């Protein structure tokens, strides 16, 4: 109750892991075990879906429906009827 952040879209297939350690390096929330060569999901509920791990995983072992978790941008996009926007546009004053 009153927690919309219990689950997210992060998925990880350990079979594809080549143990490069990139995911634990780029994750700002310690979702993948740090300082271990074998990637392990240790805190999946802390994922903010920034997509850094997916982008830097050379084998595509990680998938996440990434985007910017900003209500302002999402509501604005819904009102304008565009796709969900991200922040920092030329004419958007959202998020710096």
């Amino acid at each position, binding site marked *: 109750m009153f*927690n919309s952040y219990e689950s997210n879209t992060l998925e990880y297939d350990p079979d594809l892991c080549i143990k490069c350690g990139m995911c634990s*390096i780029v994750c700002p929330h310690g979702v993948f075990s740090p300082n271990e060569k074998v990637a392990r999901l240790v805190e999946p509920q802390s994922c903010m*879906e920034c997509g850094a791990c997916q*982008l830097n995983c050379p084998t595509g072992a990680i998938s996440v429906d990434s*985007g*910017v*978790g900003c209500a302002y941008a999402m509501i604005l996009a819904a009102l304008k009827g565009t796709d969900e926007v991200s922040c920092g546009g030329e004419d958007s004053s959202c998020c710096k």
Partner: protein
Amino acid sequence: MSDILTVSIPSKVRSAASHISLADQWDHLKARWGVNRSGHRVKPGLYALGNPTPDSPVLVTANYTLSFDKLRSSLKGIDCYILVLDTRGINVWCAAGKGTFGTGELVHRIKATGLNDVVSHRVLILPQLGATGVAAHEVKQQSGFKVEYGPVRAEDLPEYLKTHKADPEMRKVHFTLPDRVVLIPVDFIKVLLPMILAAFLLFLFGESLMAVGIVAAVIAGVVLFPILLPWLPTTDFSSKGFILGGLVALIFAAFSFFGETPASGWVRAGWVLIYMLVLPPITAYLALNFTGSTTFTSVTGVRREIFTYVPVMGYMFGSGVLLLIILTLITILGGL
């Protein structure tokens, strides 16, 4: 002829200092208050800090003055190159989310600055939060440069540069009280005009307590909420906002009910209802919008919040305003 064609163009390396001048601080202040929002830019390109040699490290950043200045001021006494990407005056993390601090721009900027000829090594140090827009393995493939992700915060760079290893703490992003407080002015400026307009309108119609109530609810949403964020109960921003806005509304409802007015009991009760319906959704909506400023809310969670709470906010606010109009009209027309 062929010699001329193969000789690389001498790259233009600008010089930078680690000192932050008064003019820089003035620029930072304006940026924090939303003055000339996207005009706080550094020229993209390559900069020399101190007296770098071809072996010196190359650090990459965004062309937002706050980002560039944070980086250079953290590197006092360190000789290095700074490669500034064109992120259109947006900070590293936001630009990475948008892709402007991205693989394409990085590879392009490496070539445009002739970095190949300036340094003898092939390593770039990027801020960790840039990883949202940059695929390290693709940069290597396309430019020959190996991307190394440094710490989240520039202040940890001197430590990082000693070993090229970041401990887990350096890799974690935080959202401390000072982190939250610096964000307040920009959001406050954004809501200032509508807030004044609404308050002024209510004042004109003789509803001065309600005018103050609106101002209080807005300030609760954009000033108090960011400060109190970790201490407000529940996880969702909207529910936290409803709690905070509810407390504000209770104060005004009490003032209205127990204040000295000639109004009858049921009119007073009506006002209590109006305050409880109108004020909490204002604070809750502004609280929900703060998700975009945080360092941890996921798009899935925020979407869920929007679907759960925005309709409730709309119904509450709408019916509250309707009741407000009816009651104000009755009062003006001299009835009851």
